[in-house]
């Protein structure tokens, strides 16, 4: 498979009190079209990932809102929801619309406006991605679920509290060079270990923040892409998988099998293996998430993610640089936008446009998770 990304665009990520929901999407979309050199009238369809505009800003029917506000009526617009993996799923829908021959040029975006409600409401809204009957109803929230995964990972594999902290330290260091990131502040292991407890063993600085933001990419068929650029970035692999919605129903707690299965499909479609990947954006909603991701994607053996992190294997300059953008932790995590923002970062890296955080890579990967791992979506990218 081969679908081209010919343009990328982001908004700044952060607490954007003075920017409305629809403005976020339009800004990221306009940036992507400008980057691609594409005129709005050439866009055939929009796919947008969004988790919960209904609860965050009381707005549903956002597919229509976005096409309207972007001035792109009457083209079709479709919203895709898969919790925090909404963006990654939207990207896959865009890819399929091109591979099927339905469209030649589409915009895929992700958007979330999370700061218009109080923190308690945001946490409750995010918890709707868990099993309402068996998890959320009993008071479980995502920090709690990931804390249990962290505890089990520490128990089974000897992963240490410091190794978890090092994920956050690395991602904050990377974000300093990302002008779109929510945080531009270096932190230390001690800062993480002394931050307030959220759900033992996870502390505040283990958790991704509440963020407003949007991200967009312009997808084109191989033939159409040539009209705009000689050097597109191609998506050559896509995989999507599900697991049980509730954490307690899984055979193993510290292993996310949806990631394993999505990665298997993506590698197969791209004809690649984990050792071919030179840069990756993975779903570090919590620090333990990144450690499990780099194991489940096959970069390291199960149980060795913490050690690999400690040894600097995932740093810029390491064996496989992970979350060069700052990841969800430091770049920010506007849930519906995250999966698309990950694709933006890999495109910038492969194009050589990731100033200050640039790595030498021809092949990259993105990994986007919904809930505690009920859903995962993986994409592989190659230089054209």
């Amino acid at each position, binding site marked *: 498979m081969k679908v081209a990304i010919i343009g990328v665009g982001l908004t700044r990520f952060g607490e954007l009190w003075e920017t409305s929901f629809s403005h976020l999407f339009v800004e990221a979309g306009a940036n992507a079209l400008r980057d691609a050199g594409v005129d709005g009238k050439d866009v055939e369809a929009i796919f947008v990932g969004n988790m919960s505009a209904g609860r965050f800003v009381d707005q549903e029917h956002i597919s229509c809102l976005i096409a309207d506000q972007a001035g792109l009526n009457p083209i079709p617009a479709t919203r895709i929801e898969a919790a925090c993996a909404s963006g990654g799923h939207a990207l896959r829908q865009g890819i399929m619309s091109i591979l099927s021959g339905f469209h030649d040029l589409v915009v895929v975006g992700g958007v979330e406006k999370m700061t218009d409600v109080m923190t308690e409401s945001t946490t409750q809204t995010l918890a709707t991605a868990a099993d309402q009957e068996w998890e959320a109803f009993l008071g479980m929230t995502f920090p709690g679920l990931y804390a249990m995964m962290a505890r089990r990972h520490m128990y089974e594999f000897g992963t240490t509290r410091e190794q978890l902290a090092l994920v956050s330290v690395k991602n904050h260091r990377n974000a300093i060079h990302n002008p779109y990131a929510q945080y531009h502040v270096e932190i230390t292991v001690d800062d993480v270990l002394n931050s*307030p407890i959220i759900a033992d063993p996870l502390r505040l600085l283990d958790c991704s923040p509440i963020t407003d933001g949007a991200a967009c990419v312009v997808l084109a068929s191989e033939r159409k892409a040539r009209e705009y650029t000689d050097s597109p970035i191609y998506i050559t692999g896509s995989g999507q998988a599900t697991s049980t919605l509730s954490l307690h129903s899984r055979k193993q707690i510290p292993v996310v099998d949806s990631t394993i299965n999505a990665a298997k499909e993506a590698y197969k479609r791209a004809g690649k293996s984990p050792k071919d990947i030179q840069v990756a954006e993975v779903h570090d909603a919590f620090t333990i998430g990144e450690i499990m991701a780099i194991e489940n994607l096959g970069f390291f053996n199960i149980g060795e993610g913490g050690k690999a992190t400690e040894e600097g294997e995932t740093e810029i300059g390491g064996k496989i640089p992970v979350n060069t953008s700052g990841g969800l932790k430091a770049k920010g995590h506007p849930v519906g936008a995250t999966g698309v923002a990950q694709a933006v970062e890999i495109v910038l890296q492969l194009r050589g446009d990731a100033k200050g955080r640039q790595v030498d890579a021809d092949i990259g990967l993105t990994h986007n998770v919904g809930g505690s791992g009920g859903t995962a979506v993986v994409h592989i990218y190659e230089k054209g």
Partner: protein
Amino acid sequence: MKLEGVGIVGYGVYIPRYRIKVEEIAKIWGGDAKSISNGLKIFEKAVADYDEDAATIAVEAARNAVRMASIDPKDIGAIYVGSESHPYTVKPTATIVAEAIGASPELTAADYEFACKAGTAGIQTCMGLVASNIIKYGLAIGSDTAQGAPGDALEYTASSGGVAYIIGKDKLIASIEGTYSYTTDTPDFWRKEGQPYPRHGGRFTGAPAFFKHVYNASIGLMESLNLKPQDFDYAVFHQPNGKFPRKVAKMLGFTIEQIEEGILVDKIGNTYSGSSLMGLAAVLDKAESGERIMLTSFGSGAGSDSFSILVEEGIKKIRGKVPSVEDYIKRKKYLDYATYAKLRRKIKVIS
């Protein structure tokens, strides 16, 4: 706005005797006292007794101010009491103060509400009345028994206390060189009719509310008077916690040395309408003539009033006449949470 000849004739403060520590509140609600103290830079707050309210506190502060100024209370032509905990919804606190200090009946009086900046709004009103010779002296008070819902983050800081300033043209201990205000409609913190405790927008109370208004008012004042941070010996900002005033001072280019004297929130909590005015009083307790002080209040909703204050020779004559801020801070007795809950009427008996 640049002014000449108007200033402070006297001031007085009052802080209730009781204190409750952050640890005592955190213990009840399962909070991490160390991280709250480190994060917000607060340790304990002042608590009003069962028979104290914003009116009694205002009266205590006003009596100290009149005593310091050594003026005839009958010469006070206006009293404004700023508070968000006026004992009556309808019926002024200012009339209670006027009677208690012997200023009535020939004066105008009213209550003000603008969250934590109603006291400085009162000062500005008095400045106008004095400058236009409508009155000889004006009395502006910020007084509160602030409400923080049990278990809410505000409970660690919402405290009780009051400050009174007499504004006039003669016998000045400090002149007010100018004032500048910055006001927008920003719903960061509010309490509706009938609600016992205020609600707030969490992190929205930071950047778009406190920091935007305090910063812009302070910059506006400096630009209008052609002054720079280095021209001030002290700066006092509204202090909802210990972190915000230090951060905004840094943003504006003030040094730690310029602001430390006026930060009291770690010892007495946030006295709301009294907060920044109490900090100014602590600085006036120490300042020498010729020194310049910046004062910038903040009220949620939201707005900031900024002032440039120049200490005059007269300050020497009034020192030691009435209890200082430090005297009140030292006079303290610790409460446990149960007694605090009783005194602040957090225990409701429904019969």
